[in-house]
């Protein structure tokens, strides 16, 4: 009897396990999230580019149902109903966080990129009407042109981001704005320090670890952006600085190695292999040579007392 209970419990767990996997719950506040500006054609276009690079491999081309059906859960066609029923906020959350086989694009794509993808996906839905969130009031006067500049302070060994605003040809530092700093990696970005607020002089200061590996010259690609890009806009600044540790490791395929091409195989393995093969085959040929001698001996006459048979 106990066995049946165990089976029952196991199957119940299995069912719950499956259903837990099949839902994708999005927090309420995230669900209601909206973009601050209306989608434009140029947003759709750049969204299409990002989509082709990051999403197409699993989701296929929207509207053509050529997604990778072998994956479980099925990725589905973004132009389909299942996708379009989502609110903009839900789409934004799902792209950012990912689930199971869908990777998280939080650090791989900027918020603007994600909004552009949504703009692109929505362009396949003729009944879609976009809602935008209301603009939040800030202490920066309307019409101010914001600009960011990244620099390295060699005295204090810190990275500084200067935020300035230009209104009517007068440029002033802007304080009290939260800025985050990222360093580019192979996939996604690495956040440097925590998000910092600009001071009265418009400078946000990030501590810097000199051990961070750069390229062969020590270059590191830095990116600064607003934490609240919904409020201050999608402005970001990128700069390459020679502040990383030069990474001068030779390429892995440079010297002789097991994983390299046959011409760059380790010497010991070339000598060991060819040596063993040669030795064995020399003896084999020696035996074959003996056969020739046996054949030749057949022509010799045998004296009567030597006769065996």
């Amino acid at each position, binding site marked *: 009897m106990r066995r049946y209970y165990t089976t029952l419990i196991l199957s119940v767990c299995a069912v719950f396990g499956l259903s837990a996997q099949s839902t994708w719950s999005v927090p309420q506040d995230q669900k209601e999230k909206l973009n601050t500006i209306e989608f434009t054609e140029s947003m759709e276009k750049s969204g299409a580019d990002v989509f082709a690079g990051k999403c197409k491999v699993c989701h296929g081309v929207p509207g053509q149902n050529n997604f990778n059906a*072998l*994956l*479980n*859960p099925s990725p589905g066609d973004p132009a389909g109903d299942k996708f379009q029923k989502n609110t903009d906020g839900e789409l934004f959350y799902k792209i950012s966080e990912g689930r*199971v*086989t869908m990777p998280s694009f939080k650090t791989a794509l900027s918020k603007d990129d994600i909004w552009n993808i949504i703009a692109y996906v929505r362009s396949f839905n003729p009944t879609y009407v976009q809602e935008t969130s209301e603009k939040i009031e800030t202490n920066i006067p309307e019409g101010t042109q914001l600009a960011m500049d990244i620099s390295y302070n060699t005295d204090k060994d810190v990275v500084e981001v200067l935020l300035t605003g230009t209104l009517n040809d007068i440029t002033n530092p802007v304080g009290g704005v939260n800025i985050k700093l990222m360093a580019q990696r192979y996939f996604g970005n690495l956040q440097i320090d925590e998000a910092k607020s600009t001071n009265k002089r418009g400078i946000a200061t990030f501590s810097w670890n000199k051990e961070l590996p750069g390229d062969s010259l020590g270059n590191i690609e830095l990116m600064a952006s607003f934490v609240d890009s919904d409020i201050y806009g999608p402005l970001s600044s990128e700069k390459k600085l020679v502040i990383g540790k030069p990474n001068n490791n030779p390429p892995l395929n440079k010297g002789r190695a*097991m*994983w*390299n*091409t*046959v011409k760059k*195989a*380790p010497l010991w*393995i*070339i000598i060991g*292999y*060819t040596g*063993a*093969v040669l030795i*064995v*085959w020399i*003896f*084999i040929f*020696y*035996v*074959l040579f*003996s*056969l020739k*001698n*046996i*054949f*030749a*001996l*057949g*022509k*010799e006459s*045998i004296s009567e007392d*030597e*006769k*065996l*048979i």
Partner: protein
Amino acid sequence: MSGHNIKFNKEKLDKIATDVLKPLGFNGAFKVWMSFLTVALLACLYAYSIQYREGLIVTGMRDMVSWGMYIANFVFFVATALVGMLISGVIGLLGYKWIKPITRIAEIIAVAFAAVAGLVIVSDMGRPERLLHVFMYGRVQSPILWDVTVVTTYLVISTLLYLLPLIPDLAIARGRGHEMPKWQAKIYELLSFNWTHHPKQYQLLFKSTRLLFILVIPTAFAIHTVTSWLLAVNSRSGWDSTIFGPYFLTGAFVTGMAAVVIAVFFFRNSYKLREYLDDSLFDKMGKLLEFVCVVYFYFNLNEFVVPAYKMKEFDAVHIHELFVGKHAIMFWFSQICGLIIPMIILLWKPFRKPVPLFIISLFVIVGAWLKRYIIVIPTMEHPFLPIQNLPNEWIVYSPTVIETMVTIGSIIMGVMIISVLAKLFPVIPIWEMAEEEDQNEDKTTKII
């Protein structure tokens, strides 16, 4: 042995030659048997033609389990082929004389199985027409190239070890005017290399075979050790083991011994050679099988008890599958019926009589085949990479009908080669059996 002078007992030679040469020749029964095998083989070749046309998609192999029944079967064939080395090389060089009547049968098995092993690998290739690329673009760092090299070398040495001691026998058959068709006489003439029983010819023959006996030992060790490395150089559970080389090698001795017992039992009865393949020979073969079983059991103990004691994360999953999971029946059958029970009952003399030993060997060889399946497939089903949410048929391997037929075809091919060789040439070395025992030889020094 190369130094000693050979002497023949002429009466003995007469009798042996008559007895051994009598069953030769392609008689009616043999033709029926070969036609049956040919028809079966054609069916299997048809299955292969489908695979050749459609590709490996017709097999049960997918991305995750990319080595299936073919590789398991390949390991089995290589293992069985090793018996030639065990009998002629190891036991022969140790100076044991009782192996004389079975040396040639062991070599036939070695040649047939080594030859077919190469073909089995080709059947596992998606593009067999690119076989030459293995040699042209092979990487010296890859065990696959080493394997191709040693399988070829072992096949050549085994063939020489089969053909060389055959030369005097072919000359004896010719000299005695043994009746045979013209084409067969031609082969006998060609392969007897102008043999006139010249004492110098015997000296050369002894020297050559002795050299090959020594050479075949490292080559055979290499062939099966490299085959085990194909698996063991991966860090996957079940393969990631330092004893895989000797584990495979000792397993090969068990498989090969069982194959030899089965073949010897067959020739003893259908060739009416009871006088030479007698009960005492079976007793000795039984003892040798017992010995290799004990050694193999020891390696099994190490191979399974040590990881099962530690139960490392991934090993635990693997061992669970083997011990109580979906491979449990196959695993315990091969371990208990194919190894442990034979090992125990062979301790008693009545079980080393021909018929019981034959039945035990059948169990051992079936168990050995299943064991190779157990070694290859369960590990493939549990990769380290966190692969999730794949379709079920990618994860769970089950061989398809086509795959099974191609595998059966390889076994048929092996049996066909053995059948032809055994009907074409004497299965017992006539001249070695008729050799006069050297009375002066010190009986106590057995080792080389």
